[in-house]
């Protein structure tokens, strides 16, 4: 550990503080929402001296450094945790370049510059305190309103620019667009392998051939993000290029597969078998509606009766986890391909995000070996194999990469989207006068 670092409340940072943080995250009492998964099979820390800690794991855990680079494993002040108890989350104290100043619920959070900051990571652009004197974070949920605040100067940096506004902002010299390619699970539709009729491989493969990601990408996303043909975005380590071209858009091929599996065209324009219509059930949340509506029409042209219905996000997640949908859309930002474990390991059926409900000992074994391996080349081969099986078994229809689109006034300098695309390094940023 670096020496001479202090938390905003004056508490010194050292190996004890690291152990305190990791022990606290793994303590069930903390009820950790995500950080605990980044620690994997954490099995305690040994303090070797004031500035050295050995972190133990029950089994090898390759993605630890990836987790340790995320703010979810950011170091909090042990003294402040003791002082504030359950209210620490609204009185945050760290060692970072900004200090928490105030939080007006529903309105804004204010951070002010840490004048003592003298331990910037060497990969950033300077040393010493940050350039910005303060950062105000305003909560503006409605995207049109958010855009308007940038144009009136009420804000000078906004998150989640609508795709429809991209071209206009990009062409306006008063603004700059900051794009961040997001690795991890791209925008996909997971296909349930255990619910009729998608429990039949031929039906799943027919659906893959019925859909056309290029049309979806252009109609719904204005062609901004690129296509992907794996359950990983093209920016993600181990992306399997060999799988590209496996399921070209081919309605005739889709019909051939269905007819080969015993489906016949019924009078209503939908395929039927044993008196049952070829019906797919999908629940969705508002943000997915445009994409799924286009896909629904593409599938209908082949003879699928795809029924989609909008629901509240909590209901949607619960139903998807319970395997009640034949298909459901999702995406997940992750800088490591270990995210595939969430979607394909049998331990994550019901409890996690194995929405394809893919239950296969061989797949589990590959995923276990990949997360335990510390050999990057070996991990790359194993995760490429996971993608190959996922695609051959038609468990997922990958649509497009995800790209974070933010925008700032043109006098804001030095904002950098980090590797996860969704987050920004602001330490080197400043406002040009």
């Amino acid at each position, binding site marked *: 550990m670096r020496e001479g670092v202090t938390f905003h409340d004056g508490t010194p940072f050292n190996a004890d503080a690291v152990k305190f943080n990791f022990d606290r995250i793994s303590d069930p009492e903390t009820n950790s929402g995500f950080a605990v998964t980044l620690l994997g099979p954490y099995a305690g820390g040994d303090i070797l001296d004031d500035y050295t800690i050995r972190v133990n794991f029950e089994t090898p855990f390759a993605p630890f450094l990836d987790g340790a680079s995320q703010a979810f494993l950011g170091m*909090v002040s042990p003294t402040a945790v003791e002082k504030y108890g359950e209210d620490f989350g609204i009185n945050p104290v760290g060692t970072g370049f900004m200090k928490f100043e105030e939080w007006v619920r529903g309105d804004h959070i204010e951070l002010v510059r840490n004048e003592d900051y003298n331990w910037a990571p060497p990969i950033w652009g300077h040393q010493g305190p940050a350039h910005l004197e303060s950062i105000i974070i305003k909560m503006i949920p409605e995207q049109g309103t958010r855009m308007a605040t940038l144009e009136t100067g009420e804000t000078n940096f906004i998150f989640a620019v609508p795709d429809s506004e991209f071209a206009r902002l990009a062409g306006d010299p008063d603004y700059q667009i900051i794009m961040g390619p997001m690795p991890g699970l791209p925008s996909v539709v997971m296909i349930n392998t255990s619910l009729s009729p998608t429990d039949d491989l031929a039906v799943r493969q027919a659906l893959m051939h019925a859909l056309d990601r290029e049309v979806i990408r252009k109609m719904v996303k204005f062609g901004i993000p690129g296509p992907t043909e794996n359950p990983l975005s093209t920016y993600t380590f181990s992306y399997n290029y060999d799988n590209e071209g496996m399921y070209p858009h081919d309605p005739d091929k889709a019909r051939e597969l269905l007819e080969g599996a015993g489906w016949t065209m019924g009078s209503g324009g939908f395929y039927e078998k044993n008196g049952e219509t070829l019906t797919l059930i999908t629940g969705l949340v508002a943000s997915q509606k445009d994409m799924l509506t286009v896909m629904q029409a593409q599938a209908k042209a082949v003879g699928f009766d795809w029924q989609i219905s909008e629901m509240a996000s909590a209901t949607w997640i619960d139903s998807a986890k319970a395997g009640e949908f034949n298909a459901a859309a999702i995406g997940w930002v992750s800088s490591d391909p270990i995210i595939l474990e969430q979607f394909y390991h049998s331990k994550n059926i019901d409890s996690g995000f194995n929405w394809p409900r893919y239950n296969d000992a061989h797949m589990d074994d590959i995923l276990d070996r990949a997360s335990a391996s510390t050999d990057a080349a070996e991990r790359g081969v194993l995760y490429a194999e996971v993608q190959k099986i996922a695609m051959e078994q038609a468990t997922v229809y990958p649509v497009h990469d995800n790209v974070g689109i933010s925008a700032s006034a043109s006098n804001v300098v030095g904002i950098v989207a980090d590797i996860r695309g969704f987050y920004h390094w602001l330490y080197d940023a400043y406002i040009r006068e």
Partner: protein
Amino acid sequence: MKRLLWFVLLMAIMSVLAAACGGTKTIEVPGETIIKEVQVPGETVVVEKEVIKEVQVPGETVVVTKEVVKEVQVPGETVVVEVEKEVVKGGQLIMGMQLEPDNLDPAVTPWAVSHSVMMNIYDTLVYENHDATFHPGLAESW
């Protein structure tokens, strides 16, 4: 694909034609550099200045480059002195965010919007660069 998305944030090409009549002339390029010309009376100076700054590659890095091209038409009689203008780097960033964080305790919150705020308040043990390599943060070595 990514290469196609380069954004040139500022590209200023300035040509300055100055009919010199002695003394010192200062040309100020807003926020960037100051060019001072110290001249001998009766001569003519042409200064061409090209500044290309801050090419942002989305998701990768911000590259700051500067090129200055000067042509002094009357060598030996005109001295062109360029000095860096002191840029005051400060200000207030006012971010418009789509969702409010539930809390800012990194051990507890699972939300990306919380992460966006927390990464300014907390340091991490290591930092991951855009090429997926890890670099020292609060941890010097491992």
